């Protein structure tokens, strides 16, 4: 990195390095001190049906919703947390009870639930996820798929103790 003067290239490189550092911090929870809690996304709670049952799979499957759940502050993975998932899929609308299901995070705070293929609805191919179990503050997420052809989608929770 040049030290004589600050070129645009150096500025961009430094920016990338900082961004990369921040991104790697997200991937390696142990280093992520002072991690901010995830904020509920706009529209995240739309068509939420509380207490979706824990299932092995929603419907026929073929699509994977994955993600992680960690604690705000120290970023420690949170095992056994119930994440509720629903979406407009090839098997039903968001409002249909059979489009809803829940799963638990494993010992690494990772969750993974198979569900039917998400298809674009209300203008975007998107899913809904909720943490709403009481121990931590409730968070609703609404991730959008980069492409409607994707067969997986991920969403990550950083939860604030309630």
């Amino acid at each position, binding site marked *: 990195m040049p030290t004589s003067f600050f070129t645009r290239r150096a500025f961009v490189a430094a920016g990338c390095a900082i961004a990369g550092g921040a991104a790697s911090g997200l991937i390696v929870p142990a280093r992520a001190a002072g991690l901010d809690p995830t904020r509920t996304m706009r529209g995240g*709670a739309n068509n939420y049906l509380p207490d979706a049952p824990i299932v092995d799979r929603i419907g026929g499957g073929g699509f994977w919703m994955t993600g992680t759940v960690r604690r705000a502050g120290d970023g420690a993975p949170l095992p056994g947390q119930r994440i509720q998932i629903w979406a407009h899929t090839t*098997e039903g*609308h968001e409002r249909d009870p059979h489009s809803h299901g829940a799963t638990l995070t494993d010992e690494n705070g990772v969750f993974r639930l198979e569900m039917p293929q998400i298809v674009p609805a209300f*203008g975007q191919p998107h899913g809904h996820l909720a943490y709403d179990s009481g121990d931590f503050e409730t968070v609703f997420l609404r991730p959008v798929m980069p492409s409607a052809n994707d067969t997986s989608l991920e969403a990550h929770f950083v939860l604030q103790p309630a």
Partner: protein
Amino acid sequence: MTGIPHIRTLLIWGALLLAAAIPLIAAGQSPLLAWRSPVYIAAGFAGVMGLVLILLQPLLIGGYLPGLSQTRRRRLHRIVGTLLLVMVIVHVAGLWITSPPDVVDALTFTSPTPFSAWGVIAMWMVFLAALLGLIRRRWPWRLRSWRLAHTGTVLMIVTGTVVHALLIQGTMETLSKIMLCLLALIALAKVIFDRRVWRSGLRPGG
């Protein structure tokens, strides 16, 4: 000479028919339809038909469609305007039935989707343009100001609708959607420039 305008008439009406039919037929082929309820499908098609009507309006009022008398054109413009109003209401009502919270978010400008606000603005402008149409004869000021007001709302309708449509991943096929949007923009621009709306006085046919 009689044969030439006849062919021109056929060509113009034929082109309009294609411009209207191709996007509708293409949307009818969308795989998304298989996973939608009839109400949701109807809401989507009301949107597509609304976009077609938006193309038709400047063509009617600008006198670009041959074989129509001025009285006829103006009457059709009012009928098509009313139909557009109905399409907007069916579109929003159908979406409301399909997913109430998403429509509430859109109407309150709190939706996560950027296209919603454009659509909602266009909706209010359709209401306003229709209201202006309704009170035109009772407009207390000069007709020039009425025309400016109506054209202003229409500009927002077309801009809002085009952005709304282009940002949506829905049942419309991309290329036919872009073409229809372009045609609507061109038709509006043409009628505004041909009529010099910004400095028009009282003119027949307005």
